[in-house]
């Protein structure tokens, strides 16, 4: 018995008996197939966003320290579908029992597919959307609405970004 060696490469080995004195050939085919599945990878240039204290009469919209956040979204998607990036706040900004509404946070988007928006508690807001697969980069410049009505304290909130590739 002849041992058969298998390989993962796209190789075909075919042996045919050749009658004495005659040329012969034989061909076979192999089907190569590859499965490309959906994939999404999201990168933020910073995982923290800080707003310093500011005089409400002088600064009505406080810009975040450190400037805009750079976002890179890598996605493989079904042809004709839309890749979306959203951001959601599950709560308001809190300092103990004191609250600043999440809607006091807004951003200006820059880059292809990026849009402006306002954070909403409990509702995912669109940050960007693109057609099909690709690597996209843009920025978000956040501001916090200032007010004399805020109680003193240090307020925190977690924003969750979700990149979806259908």
């Amino acid at each position, binding site marked *: 018995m002849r041992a058969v060696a*298998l390989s993962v*490469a796209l190789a075909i080995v*075919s*042996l045919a008996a050749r009658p004495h004195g005659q040329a012969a050939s034989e061909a076979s085919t192999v089907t190569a197939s590859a499965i490309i*599945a*959906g994939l999404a990878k999201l990168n933020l240039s910073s995982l923290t966003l800080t707003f310093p204290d500011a005089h409400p009469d002088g600064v009505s919209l406080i810009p975040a320290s450190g400037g805009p956040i750079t976002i890179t979204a890598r996605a493989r998607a079904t042809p004709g579908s839309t890749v979306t990036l959203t951001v959601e706040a599950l709560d308001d900004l809190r300092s103990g029992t004191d609250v600043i509404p999440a809607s006091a946070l807004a951003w200006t988007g820059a880059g292809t597919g990026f849009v402006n928006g306002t954070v909403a508690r409990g509702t995912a807001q669109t940050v960007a959307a693109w057609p099909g697969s690709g690597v996209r980069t843009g920025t978000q410049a956040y501001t916090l609405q200032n007010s*004399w009505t805020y*109680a003193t304290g240090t307020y925190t909130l977690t924003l969750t970004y979700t990149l979806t590739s259908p």
Partner: protein
Amino acid sequence: MRKSLPLLIAVAAALVLSGVPAAAQSTADLTVSAAVNARASLTLSDAGVAFADADPDVTANITGAPVLTVTAKSRTSNGNAVTLTVQAATALTSGGGDTIAASNVTWAATGDLSAGTLDTAAVTIGNWSNSGSRSGNMTFSLVNSWAYATGNYSTTVTYTLSAP
């Protein structure tokens, strides 16, 4: 007779690049923090209020001009009291040394302010809780009297906004 030889077929290249489902997601959390510090801002619409001379038989109480608009803005911890006071440095005093007691000056107030009588001790014209912006108008009056010596009288009235 032609021998049939076993046909060696390589394993089809089922090259799987990814095992994830067709739809994919990636998430990231961003932590937001904001500092809100105590602040106080006091604005008076004018730097002075004047009482014109008047016949005491005709005008028992002289109305001062202009009407003063007071705006008090403050940020404090929830539950804290914010107070606004006024205090005369001295009685109204003329260049000749004659005096008119500060208590002869009163005011009517609107908005968030309280009416009162001037004194050389602090008098509260606003008492509020928590952060916010408050305002109102003060219309001053001076009791007129034949007993006053002639002269130009003045005093400095200090407004103090406290937001702990």
